[in-house]
């Protein structure tokens, strides 16, 4: 009996161990299946062990098993298990059935953000023929599922007229090439021979692309060039090649025109773009633009601070007296050379040709030619009499700072940002054999010795101010002297050619002996800094100080206390020049003022109000369109944490404009922008809308205060002349009579290649929407804005809510189930 009991116990143990192994193996199979995502060998082995284990449990004591399942309790248990499995199976079958039926999902979001707008559904219902949608997605592209969901909606609503195919661009490069697909996630709409593309699966993008393919025609945008504008063919950080690609996707074809060459705006132009000109427009160009807009044309004008004159510009940067002393030539940030009668300051000529602001001018020794430099990266030679351009000297590749003729008239030399001295033959304009002479720093200034045997150059950085001297015959370096410890801004030879004087921005004055190569620098103007130096033929030295004064040195002492101080400028003086007889010195500066001083008396002979203070383009906007581009730079302390004070971030837009309504919930930013003022339009047929506004912590700063460095954070001077924020950065205008449309933005680099790298901002969307409005293609693709209400839980402001969620999930729910279970148990027990 005992033995029988032992066998029974062993059998029981074996049975339950077998079941345990079987269940564990079943668990292992499930884990392996889920982890590997497929039914692998390990899963099959686990399943086998599991089946063997469960079979062992049944077979070791089959009688006990049969009696267990055929007993009353067993049958109840089995029935319950079968019913549960049946319920789950019905649920799964129901799910599969619904999935099979491809039933439209319900959009339970408050703002119906997953439901196609009425505009889209109407557009789909109006399809007059089949539209093929090719969605190019790589298999690994996570956006494919979202695209599928969204395009399914379009397919359903189109009543079979729109069909969607997903294409793997890597597997079908020929098809991708046919539609010029360059990235996964490009969606091509095709109807007949018309195609358009969408770069994302937002309803705006997709419906826009659909509308364009239905619309069919291309739009032509002409970018006006010739004034240093940004170009669609510019692939560097400042160019517009990226936004050009976006425009192409919208069937907008871009091209460039120079109004002075074409004389008109092409008849097929849907709009023109003026993107950040740095030189001024001529009256002729303004007349062409005005005629085009009067006929109902459209234009977008993007303007940077400081362009078109005013205190935010560089004013007049170069000045020279003619050898006979009768004429003064100046080079201005407006891109022109102006000639003035030295006797009274009357303007006697304007020379145009540079495509950006000028930095220097110099006469040839015979006075017949002028050489000029510009930030358009060119050095040009002009005939003084006719104003005709004689040559564009080849060699410079970056902004050019200074150029001059050698005193013997045989050479022309220039220096600039490209860290080299370029020297040309002044007759043939061919570079000298030894040119260019490379240096390790950007250069700011140069000077020929009076005998033309040497050329000295200087420049540097905020920590070094070296000077180099070369032999002009051999091109061999004679002196390389780290004389200053900051930028050398200006230099001049003494009349005997023995000494080179240099002025650095830190206020040190250098003196270099050309014979010995020895030099020294004294901190004569260390309190203020110097920006220019000139030496008259009699040896008189004039300095321009950063505090906007001109100092005439009267002794050789180290201190400037005996200097004659000439005050009149209100901003940095860029250049000085003595008249040939030394009786007068002329100074020019950022304040756009040309002051002519009497050296002997230390008084102002006369003042010229610089180059045209108002850009004809800005004047046209103000007079004809009641839009004033303010002479300021916008500083926004409220949004400075993302970039800096000079880069306002905009989140306030006009909510009804078709340009800004689609981006109401998005951010844009405008680096180094100027503000815009809408003038009174009550007496006109104009409708002006402020499209984009900065924060209330911003202002349009109209002067730099005490500092001359605009980009030193915290040093700008807020004053009463500033324009208080929020300020307007972009305006749209429509002439209700002629139908002409205009968009003006106080910034041009917000859609440059570098700025479009910031993909979390919607600068490109803003630009594209403006183009669509201007080309009148917005009507068919305008979608009502969807106001999303962010209902996500914010733990920062809802700690009580968080606790409630935690308590209800961790305690209340389990307690509720336990209480319910107990209730059922007690009820059943009381019935027995």
């Amino acid at each position, binding site marked *: 009996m005992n033995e029988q009991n032992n066998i029974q116990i062993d059998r029981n143990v074996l049975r339950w161990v077998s079941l345990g192994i079987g269940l564990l193996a079943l668990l292992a199979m499930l884990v392996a299946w889920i982890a590997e995502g497929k039914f692998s060998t390990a899963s099959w082995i686990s399943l086998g062990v599991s089946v063997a284990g469960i079979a062992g449990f049944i077979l070791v004591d089959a009688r006990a098993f049969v009696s267990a399942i055929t007993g009353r309790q067993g049958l*109840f248990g089995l029935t319950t298990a079968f019913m549960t499995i049946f319920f789950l199976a019905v649920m799964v*079958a129901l799910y599969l059935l619904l999935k099979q039926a491809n039933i439209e999902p319900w959009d339970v979001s408050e703002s119906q953000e997953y439901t196609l707008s009425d505009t889209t559904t109407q557009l789909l219902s109006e399809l007059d023929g089949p539209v093929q949608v090719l969605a190019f997605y790589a298999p690994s592209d996570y956006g494919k599922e979202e695209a599928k969901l969204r395009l399914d909606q379009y397919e359903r609503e189109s009543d079979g007229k729109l069909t969607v195919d997903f294409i793997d661009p890597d597997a079908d490069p020929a098809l991708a090439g046919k539609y010029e697909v360059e990235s996964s996630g490009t969606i091509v709409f095709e109807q007949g021979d018309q195609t358009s593309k969408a770069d994302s699966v937002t309803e705006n993008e997709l419906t826009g692309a659909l509308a364009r393919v239905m619309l069919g025609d291309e739009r032509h945008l002409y970018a006006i060039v010739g004034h240093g504008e940004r170009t669609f063919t510019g692939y560097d950080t400042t160019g517009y090649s990226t936004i050009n690609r976006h425009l192409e996707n919208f069937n907008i074809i871009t091209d460039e025109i120079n109004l002075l060459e074409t004389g008109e705006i092409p008849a097929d132009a849907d709009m023109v773009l003026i993107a950040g000109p740095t030189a001024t427009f001529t009256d002729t160009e303004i007349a062409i633009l005005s005629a085009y807009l009067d006929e109902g044309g459209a234009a977008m004008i993007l303007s940077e601070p400081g362009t078109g004159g005013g205190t935010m510009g560089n004013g007049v940067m170069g000045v020279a007296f003619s050898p006979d002393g009768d004429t003064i030539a100046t080079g201005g940030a407006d891109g022109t050379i102006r000639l003035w009668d030295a006797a009274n300051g009357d303007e006697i000529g304007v020379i145009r040709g540079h495509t950006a602001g000028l930095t220097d001018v110099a006469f040839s020794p015979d006075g017949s030619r002028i050489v000029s430099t510009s930030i358009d990266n060119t050095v040009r030679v002009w005939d003084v009499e006719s104003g005709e351009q004689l040559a564009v000297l080849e060699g410079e590749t970056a902004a050019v700072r200074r150029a001059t003729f050698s005193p013997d008239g045989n050479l022309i030399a220039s220096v600039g940002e490209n860290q080299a001295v370029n020297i040309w033959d002044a007759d043939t304009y061919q570079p000298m054999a030894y040119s260019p002479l490379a240096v390790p720093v950007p250069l700011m200034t140069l000077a020929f010795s009076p005998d033309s045997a040497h050329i000295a150059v200087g420049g540097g950085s905020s920590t070094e101010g070296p000077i180099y001297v070369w032999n002009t015959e051999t091109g061999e370096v004679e002196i390389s002297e780290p004389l200053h410890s900051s930028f050398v801004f200006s230099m001049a030879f003494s009349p005997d050619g023995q000494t080179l004087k240099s002025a650095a921005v830190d206020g040190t004055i250098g003196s270099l002996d050309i014979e010995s190569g020895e030099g020294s620098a004294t901190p004569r103007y260390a309190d203020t800094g110097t920006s220019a130096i000139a030496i008259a033929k009699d040896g008189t030295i004039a300095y321009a100080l950063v505090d906007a004064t001109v100092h005439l040195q009267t002794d050789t002492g180290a201190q400037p206390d005996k200097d004659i101080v000439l005050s009149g400028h209100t901003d940095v003086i860029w250049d000085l020049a003595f008249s040939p007889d030394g009786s007068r010195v002329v100074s020019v500066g950022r304040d756009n003022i040309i002051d002519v001083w009497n050296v002997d008396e230390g008084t102002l002979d006369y003042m010229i109000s610089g180059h045209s203070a108002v850009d004809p383009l800005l004047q046209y906007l103000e007079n004809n369109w009641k839009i004033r581009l303010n002479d300021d730079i916008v500083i926004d302390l409220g949004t400075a944490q993302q970039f800096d004070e000079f880069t306002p971030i905009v989140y306030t837009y006009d909510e009804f404009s078709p340009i800004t309504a689609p981006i109401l919930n998005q951010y844009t930013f405008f680096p180094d922008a100027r503000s815009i003022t809408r003038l009174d339009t009550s007496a006109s047929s104009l409708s002006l809308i402020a499209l984009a506004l900065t924060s209330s912590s911003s202002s349009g700063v109209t002067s730099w205060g005490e500092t001359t460095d605009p980009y030193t954070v915290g040093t700008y001077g807020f004053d009463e002349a500033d324009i208080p924020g929020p300020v307007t950065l972009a305006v749209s205008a429509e002439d209700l009579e002629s139908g002409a449309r205009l968009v003006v933005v106080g910034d041009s680099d917000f859609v440059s290649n570098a700025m479009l790298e910031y993909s979390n901002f919607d600068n490109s969307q803003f630009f594209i929407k403006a183009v669509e409005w201007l080309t009148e293609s917005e009507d068919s693709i305008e979608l009502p804005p969807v106001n999303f209400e962010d209902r996500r839980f914010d733990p920062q402001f809802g700690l009580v809510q968080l606790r409630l969620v935690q308590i209800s999930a961790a305690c209340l729910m389990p307690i509720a189930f336990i209480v319910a279970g107990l209730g059922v148990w007690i009820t059943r027990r009381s019935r027995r």
Partner: protein
Amino acid sequence: MQTRNRLISGLVLLGVAAALITTFVLLGKREEEPEVDETAEAETVDLFPDAVFGVVEAFSVTDNETGDTFAASIDEDSFEWVIDEMPTEPDPALVVDSNQITSSLFSLPSLQSSRVLSEIEALAPFGLEEAHYTITFRVTSGGEHTIYVGSQNPTGTGYYVRLTESVDLTQEVYLVDTYSLDSVIWFLENPPLIEPTPEEEQPEGA
């Protein structure tokens, strides 16, 4: 008896449910079939599994359009790279930049394909009917391998390549990372030559 009937009903319902699920699963599978792109596999594949741990000792790259070839091999004595062939006459003042060659070839034996395309209908769309470049390399273990390089993919991230000389459509086309091949193709126009490093002067008396 009632319990037994319940059990039988439960079993019948279970059977019906199982039949339903099977039907829908099979139907669903059949519907999804066209979307399964069997010609494109996204798994990475070693192109030369037997050379993965090898070191390149000789290689050549040929522009099949111009016929220009750049070839170099490791000199058995000096263990430095020597140029066997290049499109233009080398400047005698320059020396071979062995470091550049070594670093450019480093990933060649372990080249991987991010996509394998099979059942292709034509090689021309991949630029492989007449491959643009042919790269051949030999590893220290002795094996010689050839890659026929076609066009770049539309997104510019890779080159299509084939591994056999034939233009048989039953072969597979591989997509290989652009950078790995560009560093070798680059030698055709920019031979790895540098100015020799000046020898340090010996101090007097040394």
